[in-house]
């Protein structure tokens, strides 16, 4: 399949990409391309230009700055999966990334591309919410930091504004925290029908779900029920019941609203059991 015609511009820096975005207001940023290119092949998107930011060096890699992990937006899933810094300080991400797509998808897909695209069934948004990540964006008017809780605003919609580029993800290091991601994959696409990420830091529980609704969201009921409680099998089982009401959930051929609500409980329980080592 061929996409519509477009002009190809390769950016070598964030500044150059911002300037290209100003010159080509109808352009799309090209990262790993594994959502954008299929969409263009189906002619659901026909940008006049693509600005390739995937090779911008300042947008790549994982580094540690004091008590924060800084992940460049163009860091690929494969790089996240194999990052020793993440394995040591944020094992949730390598574990969740291992469940994304397949190895070829993980070779190309990027964390920034996934978050900016905000597919309601993407895996990483749930982890961002559970980890309390901050998302950094650079635009013509400067740089700003957006809390993960404020970032996802709707289906394929985020707090990013026109002309802005998502540049970095900042993740607080929670030494000793227990964390895990459990996912029920769509049997063909491997997207999350439902995926739940949990982070238990001392008595503080943060949990979030993807695939269930219009965008990834915190599981407040679960957080309240378990915070301050010991992570026992009985406490986990008692907390993971009726976490979301089916009424507002997604429904499709893969899962009805009621089944999705059931899967949220089951995936939350599995993630917590795994995090607790039970």
């Amino acid at each position, binding site marked *: 399949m061929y996409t519509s*015609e477009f002009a190809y511009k390769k950016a070598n820096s964030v500044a150059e990409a911002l300037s290209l975005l100003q010159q080509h207001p109808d352009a799309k940023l090209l990262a790993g391309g594994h959502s954008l*290119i299929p969409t263009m092949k189906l002619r659901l998107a026909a940008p006049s230009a693509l600005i*390739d930011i995937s090779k911008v060096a300042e947008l790549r890699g994982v580094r540690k700055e004091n008590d924060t992990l800084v992940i460049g937006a163009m860091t690929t899933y494969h790089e996240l999966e194999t990052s020793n810094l993440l394995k040591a300080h944020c094992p949730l991400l390598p574990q969740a990334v291992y469940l994304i797509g*397949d190895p*070829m*998808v993980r*070779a190309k897909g990027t964390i920034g591309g996934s978050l900016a695209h905000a597919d309601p069934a993407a895996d990483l948004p749930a982890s961002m919410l559970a980890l309390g990540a901050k998302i950094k964006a650079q635009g013509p008017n400067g740089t700003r930091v957006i809390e993960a809780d404020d970032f996802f605003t709707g289906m394929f919609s985020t707090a990013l504004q026109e002309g802005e580029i998502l540049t970095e993800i900042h993740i607080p290091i929670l030494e000793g925290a227990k964390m895990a991601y459990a996912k029920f994959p769509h049997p063909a696409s491997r997207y999350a029908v439902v995926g739940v990420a949990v982070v238990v830091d001392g008595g503080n529980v943060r949990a979030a779900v993807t695939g269930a609704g219009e965008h990834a969201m915190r599981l407040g009921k679960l957080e309240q029920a378990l915070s301050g409680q010991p992570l026992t099998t009985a406490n986990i089982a008692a907390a993971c019941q009726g976490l979301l009401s089916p009424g507002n959930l997604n429904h499709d051929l893969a899962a009805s609203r009621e089944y999705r609500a059931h899967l949220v409980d089951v995936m939350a329980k599995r993630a917590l059991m795994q995090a607790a080592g039970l």
Partner: protein
Amino acid sequence: MADKVHIKVVVNGVERHSEVEPRLLLVHYLRETLGLTGTHVGCDTSQCGACTVHVDGQAVKSCTMFAVQADGSSVTTIEGLGSPGSLHPVQEGFWEMHGLQCGFCTPGMIMATVDLLNKNPNPSEAEIRHALEGNYCRCTGYHNIVRAVQYAADKMAGKVGVAADD
């Protein structure tokens, strides 16, 4: 027509210079511009993995990448792996273990397998199945494909003995 872009790509060790339309997919560049038809177009929707090639040592789906994105890169296709008289151990594994029926998915399966064994020379059966999740075979099921990968892993590790058919 959008302006053509000059690209330089090393394909199977040979440096190629081409003027390409930005929308030309890497798989079409390989098949139609360079005549390397061993890389197949299967689903054309990033699912089936028949178009798998290596770009800078990483397996990717060449139907979901533009040729311009490979500018400056090194690409390996199935043609660059072995030759009829001197098969790559993974090609030999698919031959010996009958890891195919019609053969359409096989180039992609082999390229994905080489990528797996580069990263994990001694994978478990579960790891093999997980690593081949992006490659669909619609003929045989995956049993002999897994055996082919195990054969190749053993061969590449220098083990002479190979698990017998059961």
